[in-house]
């Protein structure tokens, strides 16, 4: 285990009105490590997509609306975000890739979330604790992010 340089977490009810507050937490954390680069917006977007997915689907058909827990941690040069829910088992990472050009051309209105997460984050891992929780772990490498940004500027 590396050195933990930053850690914050938030738990909220699965109501999409809470997305703005979660984005604020992620944006603040990302700004500390990625400065004012476009990476901040991209990482915030990826997390927003993952959390929205949980809010909209994880507890469908269940008696009560559940909670989503978001943890952001910077460990060495890894910017790590974990999105945890106690809803139905669902492995986001197992979703098939979409043909983005065809989807957009055909007017597909949704199903872009996992595509964006894959585009933005360097690693995505799914972990399921039987009968307890789904955990989606997304990692953005801080070195990579800086290098990517430098290339874009060049």
């Amino acid at each position, binding site marked *: 285990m590396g050195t933990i340089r930053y850690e914050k977490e938030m738990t909220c009810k699965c109501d999409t009105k809470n997305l703005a507050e979660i984005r604020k937490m992620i944006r603040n954390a990302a700004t500390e490590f990625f400065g004012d680069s476009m990476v901040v917006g991209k990482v915030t977007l990826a997390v927003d997509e993952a959390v*929205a997915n949980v809010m909209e689907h994880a507890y469908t058909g269940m008696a009560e609306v559940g909670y989503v827990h978001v943890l952001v941690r910077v460990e060495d040069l890894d910017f790590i975000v974990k999105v945890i829910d106690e809803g139905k088992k669902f492995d986001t990472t197992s979703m098939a890739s979409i043909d983005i050009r065809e989807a957009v051309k055909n007017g597909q209105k949704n199903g872009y979330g996992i595509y*964006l997460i894959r585009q933005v984050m360097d690693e995505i891992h799914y972990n399921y604790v039987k009968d307890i929780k789904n955990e989606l772990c997304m990692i953005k490498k801080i070195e990579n992010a800086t290098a990517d940004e430098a290339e874009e500027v060049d």
Partner: protein
Amino acid sequence: MAELELDIVSKDNGIAVIRLEGFLDAHTFEKLDNVLQDLLEEKVVNIAVNLSDVEYISSAGAGVFIGAMAQAQEVDGNIILVNPTANVHEVFDLLGVSQIFTILDTDEAAVKALTR
């Protein structure tokens, strides 16, 4: 700032100009979707959407534009996006939305382009 403010600035000769302010995410996208669907049902199929005051958009928001564009094009209409902020433009780029949308700098330029 409110979550999403939406104002139909003008609606003349089958061309509408809409101005948005706030954020377009999984919580607010339906408000825009409803307005666009209403316009399309009224046969207003040429629409300019000013995004200069939209601070954030997620795939839910972009999906509204993508779906509405397909509907508009089916009846020879068009949707033009006006002056998106850098953050919003970045999401459009990630999704490749620019392949189907014209993006212009001003409402006037958009209306001119929509007037045929």
